[in-house]
């Protein structure tokens, strides 16, 4: 017990009070973050000045921007010497930027519908809380989108889809006894169905047909979306398989995967695209005409898959071996332990890396402009900039292309951050 009157009883409780004005809200934040020391004050003022000069320099360009003109000459006339952008090109060439210059303008509703439906197809894949039944639509979507974009009779995608269904059904049916037997029977059954279905399609080419649009008429941002979506969608499963193959105990599978990954990673994408465009034509027999878009998609898928495989391999290696052992000791076989235990964790670790590669792939789709395909950048570099009316409008066009890609890629990266938070279970 202390000596001097340690006994104390409080009769009245002190009400909670607000902190002094310098310790709350904006004032506190400004004091602590902007003006806490003389050096800080100088840096703050300097930054404000830099921000001001940038805005002051760029603002007139935006504000004076001309939206209605028929050529770059018109723009200059309207601006009359003042600084200003010539946004009219975006307005006048909007369909070309988005759909390319050959896609029939009466059919624009088809890619539009395909993009809107794409959002519905992606939703159940991206958001796990949505009902699993919606995944059925995601399965059908690729075939539906093919019909919408390329046109022709819907029998083609229907036959393709049913072929897959039959193949998978046969595989399920027979793989219970032996995996290889099931796979072989599945492939044979699907192929037989496709050959037979081919006759039906040939006989009914006009059945419910939409106007057919050949691949070489695809262009604009639509082509970027098309290539990017398909390449990313195919390369993620392929990349996972390659990563698993690289860690396989079976030497032949392992070496095939290692060779594939190392070869593809060691070659620039643009080289692969040239191979797809030019060199394959020398090696394939003359009568085969594999669609150029298909060849490009295959190359992009391979390229992206090789990178994803390495990212996923990193994720697999990061898991403690105890996870494999625990799964094994519970009697889970290889495919089940991968599906339920290993891959969910390894992929979660790999999300930033996978998204990184995929965002890169989305942007790399613009490389096809070099093999004379008219994607967004190809359209700008080719038909638009070389036309007499819009010659020299670089900033507006490339700025618009950059903005479009930024919006898409930034959304993807925001989604991935959200997904990582969703999957966080360790310290919730």
């Amino acid at each position, binding site marked *: 017990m202390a000596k001097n009157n340690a006994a104390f009883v409080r009769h009245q409780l002190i009400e909670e009070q607000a902190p002094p004005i310098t310790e709350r809200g904006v004032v506190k934040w400004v004091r602590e973050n902007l003006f806490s020391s003389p050096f800080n004050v100088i840096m703050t003022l300097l930054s404000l000045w830099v921000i001001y000069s940038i805005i002051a320099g760029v603002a007139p360009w935006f504000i004076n921007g001309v939206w209605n003109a028929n050529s770059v000459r018109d723009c200059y006339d309207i601006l009359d010497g003042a600084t200003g952008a010539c946004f009219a090109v975006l307005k006048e060439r909007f369909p070309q930027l988005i759909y390319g210059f050959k896609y029939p303008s009466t059919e624009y509703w088809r890619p539009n519908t395909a993009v809107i439906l794409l959002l519905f197809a992606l939703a159940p894949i991206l958001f796990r809380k949505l009902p699993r039944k919606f995944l059925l639509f995601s399965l059908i979507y690729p075939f539906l989108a093919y019909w919408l974009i390329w046109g022709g009779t819907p029998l083609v995608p229907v036959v393709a889809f049913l072929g897959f269904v039959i193949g998978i059904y046969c595989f399920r049916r027979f793989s219970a006894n032996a995996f290889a037997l099931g796979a072989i029977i599945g492939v044979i059954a699907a192929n037989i169905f496709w050959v037979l279905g081919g006759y039906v399609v040939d006989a009914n080419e006009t059945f419910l047909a939409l106007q057919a649009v050949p691949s070489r008429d695809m262009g604009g941002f639509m082509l970027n979306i098309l290539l990017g979506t398909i390449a990313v969608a195919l390369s993620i499963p392929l990349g996972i398989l390659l990563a698993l193959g690289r860690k396989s105990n079976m030497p032949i599978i392992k070496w095939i995967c290692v060779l594939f990954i190392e070869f593809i990673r060691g070659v620039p994408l643009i080289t692969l695209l040239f191979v797809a465009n030019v060199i394959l034509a020398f090696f394939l027999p003359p009568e085969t005409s594999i669609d150029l878009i298909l060849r490009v998609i295959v190359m992009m898928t391979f390229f992206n898959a090789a990178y994803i495989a390495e990212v996923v391999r990193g994720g697999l290696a990061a898991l*403690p071996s*105890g*996870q494999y*052992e*625990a*799964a*094994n*000791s*519970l*009697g*889970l*076989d290889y495919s*089940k332990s991968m599906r*339920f*235990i290993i891959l*969910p*964790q390894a992929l*979660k670790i790999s999300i930033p890396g996978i998204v990184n590669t995929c965002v890169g792939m989305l942007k790399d789709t613009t490389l096809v402009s070099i093999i004379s395909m008219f994607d967004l950048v190809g359209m700008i570099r080719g038909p638009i900039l070389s036309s007499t009316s819009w010659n020299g409008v670089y900033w507006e066009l490339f700025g618009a292309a950059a903005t479009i890609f930024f919006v898409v890629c930034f959304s993807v990266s925001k989604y991935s951050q959200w997904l990582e938070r969703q*999957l966080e*279970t*360790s*310290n*919730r």
Partner: protein
Amino acid sequence: MIKQAKNEVSDEIAIGIKGMNKWFGSFHALRDIDLTVNQGERIVVCGPSGSGKSTLIRCVNALEEHQSGQIIVDGIELTSDIKNIDKIRSEVGMCFQHFNLFPHLTILENCTLAQIWVRKTPKVEAEEIAMHFLEKVKIPEQADKYPGQLSGGQQQRVAIARSLCMKPRIMLFDEPTSALDPEMIKEVLDTMIQLAEDGMTMIVVTHEMGFARQVANRVIFMDMGQIVEQNEPEEFFNNPQSDRTKLFLSQILGH
């Protein structure tokens, strides 16, 4: 006086190991191991680190492959045949030093996953079984949490429940309390003692000698990859025969 938890041991052989050898590269990890474990028997394996005790029990459910000799578990010989290995693994439960719960699944999902996909138990039934065993290890209220939210002792008890959900005939424990804080060791040991009282066949690698005295039918001492001495616990602790055993016991009991 420690309560003795010793049940009837049947004549049926649960695990038979004959002349088994195991190498890691050129290192001879297990040398000519002969061991027979009867149904209902509880065996404690002890020995200095690196003596091969963990490797021995990991060979029993084929987490490690043995290179020569014979291991017969529950009447099935362990060969490289995948089907045999999966069959044995679903009959043999295993608990690890570091629990190895699946961190991305809830406690309940940890316990039901193998039932649903290996045993093909319907989900509702699997959840009932899981809750039954979670109650048995006294943590049913944690069922919806994730492993990362539990203490070490709780995680190890979940790991035991997860193994029990597969209704194994044999349980292997690989130093189940070595990674735990002292106050959590007891809760895990109590769970294991209860399991022993229920007549489970167990092989336990541990340094908990109190547990060995109370529960084991037989204590095995290993060194340099071989079985140096095995005996009933009273005899083993009070009257060790080999010098190596005496040295080991004096070191772990001497403080």
